[in-house]
């Protein structure tokens, strides 16, 4: 496996694991408060929609000219990456509340308990689970598609995503609790750095640039983005005080 493939698999795994933890918390809250059958039905339906999306769009993307694909995908990844990184920097600097799975779990359970129940099929549990998995999964599906298409290895990206989901669901079912100990904020920081770096790399390549050393330029690029992000965290910490 090349360095770029390892980076691809790692980025997809981390991004997918983070989103899976968030979706798992909501499904767990709804399932334990309402009906597991409806919650799992919603989860399965959303997973099916996401799988169809990847299966249909994956091959379609790979037939696009590589230059066009890299400009479009690089631009979108760079946009996503900068957004992830901005939030992660703010969280790391203490200027934005960290993602707290236990608090979200308690909130979702309270909402699920308060929602009216009707006899028969639990539409609330189905809809909330479906929405949570679909919304959290859409970004991951996009990352799987774009990383996979650019490296001509949608299968590797999909496998990394599936492995992340299995790890999260397995861990969650073993604990029967939200995965509050997963270092979610650190993982988001890492994903932000990787998406930003890949976005810059592919976007510039698609625009006609030749990176010195080709794919080997990715490692120093990741290091530059990481160091810049850490410097921004330090800068905010030094000048920002909560009101």
């Amino acid at each position, binding site marked *: 496996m090349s360095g770029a493939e390892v980076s691809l698999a790692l980025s997809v795994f981390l991004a997918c694991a983070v989103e899976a933890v968030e979706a798992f918390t909501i499904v767990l809250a709804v399932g334990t408060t309402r009906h597991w059958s409806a919650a799992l039905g919603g989860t399965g339906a959303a997973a099916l929609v996401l799988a169809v999306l990847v299966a249909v769009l994956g091959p379609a993307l790979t037939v696009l000219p590589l230059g066009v694909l890299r400009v479009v995908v690089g631009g979108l990844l*760079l946009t996503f990456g900068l957004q992830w990184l901005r939030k992660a920097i703010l969280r790391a600097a203490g200027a934005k509340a960290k993602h707290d799975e236990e608090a979200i779990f308690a909130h979702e359970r309270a909402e699920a308990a308060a929602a009216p129940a009707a006899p028969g099929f639990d539409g609330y549990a189905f809809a909330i689970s479906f929405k949570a998995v679909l919304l959290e999964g859409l970004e991951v599906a996009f990352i799987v598609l774009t990383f996979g298409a650019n490296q001509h290895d949608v299968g590797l990206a999909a496998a990394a995503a599936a492995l992340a989901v299995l790890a999260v669901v397995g861990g969650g079912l073993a604990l029967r609790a939200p995965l509050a100990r997963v270092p979610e904020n650190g993982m988001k920081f890492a994903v932000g750095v990787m998406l930003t770096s890949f976005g*810059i790399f592919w976007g510039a390549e698609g*625009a006609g640039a030749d990176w010195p050393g080709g794919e080997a330029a990715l490692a120093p690029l990741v290091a530059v983005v990481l160091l810049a992000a850490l410097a921004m965290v330090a800068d905010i910490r030094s000048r920002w005080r909560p009101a």
Partner: protein
Amino acid sequence: MSPRRTLDAVWDFVVGDDWRLALAAVAAIGLTAVACALGLAGWWLAPPVALAALFWTLRDPT
């Protein structure tokens, strides 16, 4: 879903919370393309443009 809501959803998904970062991504790749079209080595342009934009959006960390 109405066309308006679909557009809003696509905008939220692609552009996200801060439109300035989406603009920065377009500028970083666009400037690289211009430099390359002029026969210059444009690879070094995108990283500082993207990171400077990120720094700029963090000036007011709220």
